[in-house]
């Protein structure tokens, strides 16, 4: 039956989302529209709710493991939420196909960067900048795969905030890629360990998805018999995903990220060229 099928597919989406710091939307939306032939609005609404499910399900474990950095999250959420407002304001003003194509290329380039960095386990020689010291963004966690305590710092905080603002705007305009942007910004710009980046991204995406979800709810796009099994499956999958993620090495997570970035790039370029 449809409900059961949705539930089990969503477990997979939730697990992948929890491991990589994404919301699972890149799986849920195509599955609902292509596999189940559902209306795009219902699919996007169910996906937004499922992003909250991934975020909430994974965050509990990542907070306990001290992988999700709440101060970094709240600091960067200032950027994403204000950016989402900008994105909503700009919707209809900018040519979305150009943006889709541009960011598709950006994602493809990021996939290349991530592939190049695939052997990197932990960042080295990271000097905290003044803002990260003032905001106490540094942290530590126990890495189960490496069997050691990892102390880390954050750098280029303002640049990170700026990219978060951009990512929020893009997510508000285009509707996909928010989680990937967050992980990339924290990993490449602020030079946090990859596991901290993915866990903190998971912690953050719930807030950005909550605003859009509430709007979809009021429009009646959230169908209980679609969003219900999807959200439940994603919750279960996210909890399972956290158990897997803490045992993975950072380099493995980087490698897993590459095909996901390629898929997002293809999805974006497709929309840019064909819409």
């Amino acid at each position: 039956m449809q409900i059961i099928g949705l539930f089990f597919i969503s477990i997979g989406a939730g697990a992948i989302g929890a491991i990589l710091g994404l919301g699972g939307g890149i799986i849920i939306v195509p599955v609902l529209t292509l596999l189940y032939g559902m209306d795009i609005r219902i699919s996007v609404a169910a996906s937004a709710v499922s992003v909250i499910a991934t975020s909430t399900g994974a965050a509990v474990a990542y907070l306990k493991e001290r992988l999700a950095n709440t101060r970094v999250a709240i600091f960067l959420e200032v950027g994403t939420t204000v950016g989402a407002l900008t994105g909503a304001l700009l919707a209809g003003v900018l040519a979305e196909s150009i943006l889709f194509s541009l960011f598709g290329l950006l994602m493809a380039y990021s996939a290349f960067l991530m592939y190049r960095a695939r052997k990197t386990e932990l960042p080295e020689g990271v000097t905290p900048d003044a803002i990260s010291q003032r905001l106490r963004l540094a942290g530590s966690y126990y890495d189960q795969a490496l069997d050691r305590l990892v102390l880390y710092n954050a750098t280029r905080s303002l640049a990170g905030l700026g990219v978060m603002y951009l990512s929020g705007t893009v997510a508000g305009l285009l509707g996909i890629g928010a989680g990937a942007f967050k992980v990339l910004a924290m990993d490449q710009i602020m030079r946090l360990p990859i596991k901290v980046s993915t866990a903190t991204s998971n912690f953050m995406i719930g807030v950005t998805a909550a605003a859009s979800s509430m709007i979809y709810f009021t429009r009646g796009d959230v169908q209980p018999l679609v969003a219900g099994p999807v959200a439940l499956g994603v919750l279960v999958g996210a909890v399972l995903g956290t158990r897997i993620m803490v045992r993975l090495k950072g380099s493995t997570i980087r490698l897993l990220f590459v095909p996901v970035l390629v898929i997002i790039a293809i999805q974006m370029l497709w929309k840019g060229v064909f819409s």
Partner: protein
Amino acid sequence: MAISGQKAAATPGVELVAARLLRMGSVSSALLIAIGLAATLFSLTEALSVSVITAGLIILVCTPILRVVGSLWVFVREGDLLYTLFCCIVLLALMGGLWMGSTH
């Protein structure tokens, strides 16, 4: 200048509050959704079971907002002006987005 990771990670307040709120939200929403779905699968009153699922979904959607509010409360209690400000900006931006969305 030296590694300050250990000192910086010594504020359990926010993490604990956030974890508790998120766990309460996810568990209660999961229970409601599961009950509602099970009721639908066993062909019990459709309208009631759909309402139960919807209630679970509403709780799920509100959970991240509650997380920000809970964090705000912790920062106010700790007297952390900067992070209190950050939480307020986030909440205001969320409300602004809601208002914009509802006027379309």
